[in-house]
């Protein structure tokens, strides 16, 4: 039995090797079909993991409130007297909102305020526009930023509005290119601040060499300040139109997040009639992202299915030609005692070998393409074992499905008709 199978297999391989160019061309459809399936799934998986990671970094048990500039009302001359001009009009989240949410909504641990402004930061040797991120001492755990050196500012420093700050690596390199900045001073609007630590804002650490122009502010040039310090000393915070840009609501767990989101919304609606805020629930974003990903996978799957179908039809086409060409051989084999099933298995082995070899080559292609994509475009790609396994199984199935018709056609000939060819 095993010997028999081995003979069928070696005969099939021998026949394929006899027509190397034809076999390779036949294989090509499957190679690129499988390769593109794996590559596309890798890009999709990479994008999905990236999205999940960036959403998860917001914290899945958190709810984020953001200040939004209210829609401009049409210029009504009757109202101009009663309201302050638009450019000084205050909007957004306030300390009152923060206190109200903390005190009235159950399962809320803490409401963490954040405000960001862009301003010029100076060291002894250089100056740089940077993001001033005014916040609370719990920022590292909530925003998932990583300690590099020193410490974050403390609750005491917050309460006393002390002139301390924490610098990001990107900004530190620009202001203090020759080493540690901890213990040094930076100047903002004439006030000096002691740098107590260096903390990295995380994943998106991009070098932007040669963009030292004063007007551009890199996303990673961040200076963390206690919010009370900023509100007491820095002009853009004092006179800014918003008190808080963002409130991060920490809840006790993921199970209440959606409900809390809704109750915050209804609470806020009472005091913010013009709806100058927005609620972001990372958990819901995550669910949304997964849904989008599923749709994306369906589209990728259809494209892949079409390309594999084309490859399969290519195989069937060639095998039909082969069957016609070898009709006489089939007749001879039948005369020498081959049953129909022997002929079917002979041709089936050939298509399965073609599509399996094509599939495995396609896996190599599919492993290579994502690497090239990542190196060229910086898009993350993740090749999963399941996608490799899936496409190899599919390629074998294609060999069987598209091989069975030519093989059956070969075997259905009466021996005498086949011999007469």
């Amino acid at each position: 039995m095993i010997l028999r199978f081995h003979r069928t297999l070696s005969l099939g391989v021998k026949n394929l090797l006899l027509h190397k160019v034809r076999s390779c061309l036949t294989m090509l459809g499957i190679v690129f079909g499988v390769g593109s399936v794996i590559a596309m799934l890798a890009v999709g998986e990479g994008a999905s993991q990236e999205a999940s990671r960036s959403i998860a970094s917001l914290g899945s048990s958190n709810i984020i409130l953001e200040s939004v500039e209210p829609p401009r009302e049409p210029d009504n001359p009757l109202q101009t007297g009663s309201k302050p001009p638009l450019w000084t009009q205050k909007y957004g989240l306030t300390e009152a909102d923060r206190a109200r949410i903390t005190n009235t909504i159950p399962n809320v641990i803490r409401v963490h305020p954040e405000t960001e402004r862009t301003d010029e930061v100076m060291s002894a040797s250089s100056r740089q526009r940077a993001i001033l991120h005014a916040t609370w001492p719990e920022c590292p755990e909530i925003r998932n930023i990583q300690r590099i050196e020193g410490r974050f500012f403390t609750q005491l420093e917050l309460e006393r509005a002390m002139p301390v700050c924490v610098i990001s690596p990107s900004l530190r390199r620009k202001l203090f290119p020759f080493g540690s900045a901890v213990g040094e001073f930076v100047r903002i609007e004439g006030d000096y601040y002691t740098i107590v630590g260096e903390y990295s804002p995380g994943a998106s650490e991009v070098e932007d060499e040669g963009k030292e122009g004063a007007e551009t502010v890199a996303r990673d040039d961040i200076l963390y300040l206690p919010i009370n310090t900023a509100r007491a000393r820095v002009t853009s915070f004092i006179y800014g139109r918003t008190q808080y840009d963002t409130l991060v609501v920490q809840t006790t767990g993921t199970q209440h997040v959606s409900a809390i989101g809704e109750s915050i919304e209804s609470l806020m609606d009472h005091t913010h009639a013009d709806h100058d805020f927005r609620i972001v629930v990372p958990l819901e974003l995550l669910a949304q992202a997964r849904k989008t990903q599923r749709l994306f996978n369906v589209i990728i799957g259809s494209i892949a299915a079409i390309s594999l179908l084309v490859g399969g039809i290519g195989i069937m086409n060639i095998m039909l030609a082969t069957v016609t060409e070898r009709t006489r051989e089939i007749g001879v084999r039948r005369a020498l005692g081959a049953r129909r099933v022997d002929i079917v298995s002979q041709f089936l082995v050939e298509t399965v070998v073609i599509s399996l070899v094509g599939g495995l080559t396609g896996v190599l292609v599919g492993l290579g393409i994502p690497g090239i994509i990542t190196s060229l475009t910086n898009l993350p790609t993740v090749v999963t074992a399941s996608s490799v396994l899936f496409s190899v199984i599919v390629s074998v199935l294609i060999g069987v499905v598209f091989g069975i018709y030519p093989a059956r056609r070969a075997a259905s000939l009466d021996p005498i008709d086949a011999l007469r060819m």
Partner: protein
Amino acid sequence: MLDLTDGVAMDPVIRIRGLEKIYTLGGETVAALAGIDLDVAPGEYLAIMGSSGSGKSTLLNLLGCLDRPTRGSYHLGGDDVSKLDDDTLSRVRGKRLGFIFQSYNLIPQLTVLENIAVPLYYQGNETPETLQRCKELAAMVGLSGRFDHRPKQLSGGQQQRVAIARALVNEPLTILADEPTGNLDSATEEDVLAMMDNLHAEGRAIVMVTHDEHVAARADRVIHMKDGQIQRTTYKTPV
């Protein structure tokens, strides 16, 4: 009625009764065989002669179980094979019959030895002993040094010898030959015919289609066919 009692004690290897084969060509029915009775005794050397269209090839195809009769019965080695299913017929072909074709019909991608072993493969009978037997058969037909040659590397006579060895590998009692020397020059024709004589001497029945009187003269019995019927039968004159 001629006396055929010579072999009456032995059952014939081939017995056909009222065998008909009718083709329909463009609405017109053509009787390629119009009711034939024929017995072939074990070890008999039978030649079938006739002009083209006489039905001799159709008869040989039916004898070889390559085609199915429209009517009539066919007993091969005592079994009625006109009613067997396709798979069993395949076994019968491989086991009881050896084919020698006019155009050799070797499989081009296989070597001499592999070609000889094809019938073994389909009988599931590839053992070291039978594979050894392939070598002996190849040597017997004079191809000792050419085991690994492909058919294309051989002359016509050599290819036909490979075909003869292949026909013998499953030890069939009946050899069916369709103009085995039709494509050969007279020297190699003599070779191949001598080989057929040897097979006959070993006790195998041979049914050979030919249109060459000279070739047919070697047979014990010659049947002449015309219009799908046996026209006359001649016997080898005892020496």
